[in-house]
């Protein structure tokens, strides 16, 4: 059976729900929708004086891939500014086969999505929401 998309690591990331929820009084918040599938991600962040993320929380109304990505992103976003988040997006893009090079953890988990182009936006939607929140 070709159901390798939902490997244990992706399912585990989604179930971990790292950063799932809302922040009280976030510095910034942004919501992104995927009009094609209806997935929706809201990112809340708190920033320090240098624009670095000190706290992050996300709400996902979307698929397991989107949940896993938001969870993975939340796990590594604290301490990063907009440039730092843009840097880790490259890891997701590499895992998806959209950029060359090896992705860093935890984004290697998304390598199975490289073969499912129609689902790649699900992985990237949390990055889009966080980028908006940081802009």
């Amino acid at each position, binding site marked *: *059976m*070709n*159901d390798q*998309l*939902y490997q244990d690591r992706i*399912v585990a990331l989604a179930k971990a729900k790292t950063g799932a929820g809302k922040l009280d009084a976030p510095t910034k918040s942004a919501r992104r929708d995927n009009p*094609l*599938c*209806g*997935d*929706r991600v809201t990112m809340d962040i708190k920033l320090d004086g240098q624009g670095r993320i000190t706290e992050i929380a996300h709400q996902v*109304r*979307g*698929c*397991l*891939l989107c*949940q896993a990505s938001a969870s993975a992103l939340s796990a590594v976003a604290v301490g990063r500014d907009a440039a730092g988040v843009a840097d880790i997006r490259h890891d997701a893009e590499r895992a998806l086969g959209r950029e060359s090079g090896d992705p860093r953890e935890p984004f290697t988990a998304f390598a199975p999505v490289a073969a*499912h182009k129609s*689902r790649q936006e*699900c992985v990237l939607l949390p990055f889009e929401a966080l980028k908006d929140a940081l802009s």
Partner: protein
Amino acid sequence: MAGTEYGMSFDIAAVRRQFPILSEIIDGRPVHYLDNGASAQTPLAVIDAVRHYETTSRANVLRGVHRLAERATEAYENARAEVAKFLGVQPLEVIFTGGCTAAINLVAYSYGSLLKAGDRILLSELEHHSNIVPWQLLRARSGVEIDMIPVTEDGRIDLTKLPRLVTSRTKLISLAHVSNVTGALLDIRAVVAAAKSVGAKVMLDGAQRAPHGPLDLPSLGIDFYAFAGHKAYGPNGIGVLWGKPELLDAMPPFMGGGSMIGRVTFAETTWAPSPRRFEAGTPAIGPAIGLGAACSWMQALDWTAAHDHEMALVQRLMDGLQKVDGTRLFGPASLQNRYPVVSFTLDGVHPHDVAQTLDSFGVAVRAGHHCAQPLMDRFDLDGTTRVSMAPYNDNTDIDALLAGVAHAARTLR
């Protein structure tokens, strides 16, 4: 499988043999195609008709005097006649469009241009976006207002609300003949009665009904009917608008160009009569011919037996889904007044993940909002997984789907 299960009147194996794609093997698995509500598969009769046109008659229609142009024109007009026969109407009342969406937009633009600010259009909460957005565009242009009939818990348009919503200002009621999410069949008689009481026109979006057998539109008392070719076993890029001739004659063109004119001068241009008035430019000739063949194919099928077969599949599906913990079905609970479209959710698993898992079982379904976001909002859903059937589906399709749903329930939550 095969016809023995449903009696001799419906030979499922013979139907399936007419659809080459059903023999396709992907990753070692047969295709279980249950996404017919998005696009149906096409039988050899349609493929052959298009190929015949492209290899023996390819030319533009109407204008040429050479032999190929005459062949093309004849085939194109024969296709119109086949569609008309399928709908129970006259050929000159049939307009070929780019699809069902294009047909609804045509009415919203052309008939809509005859409406004035304050006139009201009545839609329902379960409409496909293609029967919502064109009217919103009209509202932005002309100031018409839009009313909405709510949906019942079992996914039907709540016609008990009609008396309150249909007023003397209601000029058009445009509704799905069959819901693309719940499969519910509209009670047309009640809608037409309410419309006629105030002189409103009725349009039906037949995208999900036309693929399930011939119609007799004049008996329905409606004014416009739209459907898509690709959902009715025909090619992509073709659809149909039927309208009452007196309404079509009163409507201005939707698009300008060749074919749709009477006489053009820089001072003034006059319009051709319908249907040419609404078929500007070179039409989708091959797809129209293919759709004619699809209508002819549908005419030849025993739809009483086919419908019984489809409903038996719906029952098997609903029974099977209810055995999987955490499934929730949307739409009518019974088989009465419905067509073979079934939407469900699986607790704790997003519809896209259900659909992706089903793909790994060789099962093709649609997941998401089905271009019916107001309906999703009504039930506070991210989306559903939708199973939509055609006469060529069989028990193996349903059983493969049920195995996939059970797998998703076991592994993804």
